[in-house]
């Protein structure tokens, strides 16, 4: 029986106890906070499950430098210091030059910047690092190479292998933290999780100096999307996250506002080390919160940063706003 099989056979509470013990030992009682900031929702792909898909008739927008500045200013004013800049995947509307410009602006407000944008070549990542990017995230979505093309019928994302190689190129370019994730619900979860862990382990072995973060997004049903999610129960998700912690004690485990407050508050003390809070998932959503816009997903946890901070303190956690500052 493999190590993973043995873990999957264990009782959930038993896994949770071990995951918490490891998390407390390696990470202590500290939880880092970050927030996403969407600067563009133009996308060349047509992922059948996504609200930003080029097939979807949503209002498209790309922030101007002045708007990015206003957006950063509004988010920084809430106290957030770690920002994740997001775009749809478009080499035309949000090319490298646009991203670099956005990073240069965001630098004025945030000591720590990560990006979740279209996958790029190593040299492009080098330019992002030089501009001031500390982290990047690229979800493989599904690790099933046969299923992948049908879910990503169009655009550069159609190339499974190129996407799979993305964390390697980013690490090679010197990005400090590389984020992984499989979009749970696209496929049966077990093979996805096994492949995700193998991917993480391989990058960890090849790039021992790179910090790794893993997210476990559950696919939310999107109006008009062509795929209905295969449900992942709360218990299954908790088990997966516990096993991730046991296998990778030093990996950052991220939990976003896709999950509701009750789930987040209960799972947080077990293995989570980083959460997003008070997230706007629409382009320009911080400076213009009332503009009617289609987000990538609707956050399930809509508490303010102050409320999340208070919750962390009540639970005996130190909310960490700055965990790395650009040198």
């Amino acid at each position, binding site marked *: 029986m493999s190590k993973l099989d043995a873990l999957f056979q264990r009782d959930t509470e038993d896994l949770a106890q071990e995951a918490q013990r490891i998390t407390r030992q390696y990470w*202590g009682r*500290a939880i880092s906070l970050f927030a996403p900031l969407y600067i563009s929702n133009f996308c060349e792909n047509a992922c059948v499950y996504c609200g930003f898909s080029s097939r979807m008739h949503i209002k498209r927008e790309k922030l101007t430098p002045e708007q990015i500045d206003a957006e950063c200013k509004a988010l920084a004013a809430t106290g957030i210091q770690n920002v994740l800049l997001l775009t749809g995947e478009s080499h035309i509307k949000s090319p490298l030059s646009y991203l670099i410009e956005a990073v240069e602006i965001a630098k004025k407000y945030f000591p720590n910047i990560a990006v979740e944008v279209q996958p790029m070549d190593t040299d492009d990542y080098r330019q992002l690092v030089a501009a001031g990017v500390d982290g990047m995230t690229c979800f493989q979505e599904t690790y099933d190479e046969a299923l992948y093309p049908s879910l990503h019928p169009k655009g550069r994302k159609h190339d499974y292998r190129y996407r799979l190689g993305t964390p390697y190129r980013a690490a090679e370019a010197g990005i400090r933290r590389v984020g992984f994730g499989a979009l749970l619900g696209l496929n049966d979860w077990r093979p996805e999780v096994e492949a995700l862990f193998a991917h993480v382990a391989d990058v960890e072995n090849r790039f021992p100096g790179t910090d790794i973060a893993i997210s476990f997004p559950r696919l939310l049903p999107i109006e008009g999307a062509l795929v209905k999610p295969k449900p992942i129960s709360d218990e299954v998700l908790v088990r997966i996250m516990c096993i991730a912690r046991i296998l990778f004690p030093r990996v950052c485990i991220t939990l976003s506002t896709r999950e509701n407050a009750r789930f987040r508050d209960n799972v947080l003390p077990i293995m989570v080390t980083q959460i997003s809070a008070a997230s706007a998932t629409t382009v320009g959503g911080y400076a213009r919160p009332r503009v009617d816009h289609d987000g990538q997903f609707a956050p399930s946890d809509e508490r303010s940063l102050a409320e999340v901070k208070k919750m962390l303190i009540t639970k005996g956690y*130190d909310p960490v706003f*700055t*965990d790395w500052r650009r040198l």
Partner: protein
Amino acid sequence: MSELVIGGVSLSSRFLLGTGKFKSKQELQEVIQRSKTDVVTVALRRIDIEKNEDNIVSYIPEGVTLLANTSGARNAKEAVRIARMSRETGLGNWVKIEIMTDSKYLLPDNQETIKATEILAAEGFVVLPYVSPDLYVARDLVKAGAAAVMPLGSLIGSNQGLRTRTLIEVLINEIHEVPIIVDAGIGRPSHAAEAMEIGADAVLVNTAVASAEHPALMAEAFAQAVAAGRLAWEAGAGDQSAIARASSPLTGFLHE
């Protein structure tokens, strides 16, 4: 108990405390008081430089020396920049060099640490480098101007105790110019006492205190263990022996 002098400063406690992993700054403050430590390490990356409110530094009592660490640095260049940033921010000129390029084991990069020590010592910093215990490295650090050498007892955060004891003993025996401070891996007060009994000049502990059920109580336990271990070293503990030694030797008659 004799005083410890680092970088020209006399310290009455030989217990240095790390400030990570605590649940709140109030808890940390209580831990510092109870530990009676004279030196605390703070990761510059965790300090909210821009804001005074809730800044970790404001919870550190007057008279306790701040030892900024370069946690997060991947090479000498980054460590040097962090140290300079720390001094410019007003955190003083004590710096613990911590350079890691392995996210899994978090072992320090000795070569890069020597380079950073040389540069920062020349700039007037009081440099405390954290390294894997190695005699050649320790000698190079002394030459580079380190104010102490801080070998790891076992992997950082592992609470495994003095797994590198033999190598640390070599440093204690051979390096006399600067103090040897055992940093990382000390998980129990008994480990700290052991390090002091074999002649380490001080210990630095964080995880073992922060991950205790009652951190402030554990801090006090460590303080006592460190003091006891030091006293034992100064008292000259008798040799250990695997077999009993008769207090009336069998061959005593030969000398009568």
